[in-house]
């Protein structure tokens, strides 16, 4: 089988289940097998999606969600990378932090959300705080593991050239660990996406999550589908965008298996 044919089969196989689901959905709606209140027709949902994407109010809600998402992610990245590098570069820091991370990592941080709401209010701060708590761990762990795996001779070469230990951590160790760090960042980005949406659903004041809950309360079924589709598209876009960025940042690095 030629490579082109194999790829064609891959694409066909990939789109088949999605196409099947959409067709099934269409059939169920059109032939009245499911009440419109429970399962609106796919074309209705699509039209509503397009309408809302042009609506300023809806877009402002999206903007709110995106702001929290990126603010939380950026903070988590700075914290995670700094702590991860510090833990790898100093044995004392590493030994002190390992049990802390082991204890904190398995805790469902979403359980802390009510505490954040109580102390930080219902606005951006509590949601950003939650995003940071959830997103920091994958980055921290990836940075630490990546940094510990850096070939010591790279560091030695730099130190012999006269570079101080602290500078080495960022100009050599972080650079060398960059592929692993970026993988952690990508995971964190998706987690941030998920978490911010959930937080907005739990305490509903604004944002995409709020749009969903409000639609549910008003029994607007079509409006319930739209935020979910939007967050899914957002996740895919962020993933693709991140991969592009990763390609640019990792010029020169050897390819991973």
């Amino acid at each position: 089988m030629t490579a082109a044919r194999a790829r064609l089969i891959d694409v066909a196989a990939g789109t088949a289940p999605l196409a099947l689901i959409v067709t099934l959905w269409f059939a169920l709606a059109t032939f009245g097998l499911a009440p419109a209140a429970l399962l609106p027709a796919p074309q209705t949902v699509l039209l509503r999606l397009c309408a809302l994407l042009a609506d300023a109010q809806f877009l402002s809600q999206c903007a709110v969600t995106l702001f929290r998402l990126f603010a939380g992610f950026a903070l988590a990245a700075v914290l995670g990378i700094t702590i991860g590098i510090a833990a790898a570069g100093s044995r004392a820091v590493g030994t002190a932090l390992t049990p802390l991370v082991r204890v904190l990592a398995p805790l469902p941080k979403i359980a802390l959300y009510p505490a954040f709401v109580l102390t930080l209010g219902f606005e951006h701060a509590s949601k950003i705080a939650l995003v940071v708590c959830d997103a920091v761990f994958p980055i921290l762990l990836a940075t630490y593991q990546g940094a510990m795996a850096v070939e010591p001779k790279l560091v030695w070469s730099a130190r012999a050239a006269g570079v101080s230990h602290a500078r080495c951590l960022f100009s050599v160790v972080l650079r060398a660990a960059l592929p692993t760090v970026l993988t952690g960042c990508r995971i964190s980005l998706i987690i941030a996406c998920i978490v911010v949406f959930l937080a907005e659903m739990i305490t509903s004041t604004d944002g995409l999550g709020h749009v969903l809950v409000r639609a549910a309360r008003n029994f607007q079924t079509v409006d319930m589908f739209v935020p979910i589709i939007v967050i899914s598209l957002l996740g895919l876009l962020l993933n693709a965008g991140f991969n592009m960025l990763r390609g640019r940042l990792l010029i020169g690095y050897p390819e991973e298996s």
Partner: protein
Amino acid sequence: MAACIEIEQLSRSFDTAKRGTHLALSEISMAVEEGQFVAIVGPSGCGKSTLLYVVGGFVAPTTGRVRVVGKEVDGPGPDRGPVFQEFALFPWKTVLGNVSYGLIQRGVARREALARARALIELVHLDGYENFYPKELSGGMKQRVAIARTLAYGPRILLMDEPFGALDALTRTRLQNELLEIWERDRKTVMFVTHSVDEAVFLSDRVFVMSRSPGRIKCVIEIALPRPRRRTELLVNRRYQDYVVSIEREMDDPAEDIATHGG
């Protein structure tokens, strides 16, 4: 006058995960004069690389001390430049970036640093490859970049850890010749670790032979061959051959096997 490198009663042991403490180096004492090219040979695992790393300041001695030009070694520094078997080039930098790294870090103005780097790249016969990334280079080329990178910050001493061990035979001989050419220019002090006896004899003024682990210096052999050395001439030179044979005999001593592993 103090020798360039003085090693006094150096020992180094490691804690391994399973087998307790392992003694890698045992009471090593040696001195290297300024401008000498010395080779260190020994069987695999004898600790010769460890010795180099202690001199370089990358690994701490357990007991004993190392002095460079009278001053005790306390860590890595630009007076002792390493060249590693695995090249250890920065993959995210081009050839030019790698070679100019040390200069720029030390505060040399960018234009000056790049100019000096280019000169070095030409010295190692890699002109034209300035903008290549390490992954696009062959092993021999990578090692040339590594050598250029080390030379860039002008170390007094070169510490070379089996630098040609990962290369094929042809590239290896070519680089040996190039290394000697470069060395002849300013006669730095060189400590060259290798497990190839003919490489050691070809390149150096003195050869230190190390025993099996725990490593100690078994003997030192002065290489009284004239410079500049031509490989084609030496290969058929009787004295060269004698040196190689006698060193190999030292390394392959069965009595030592019995001594270390118990009769």
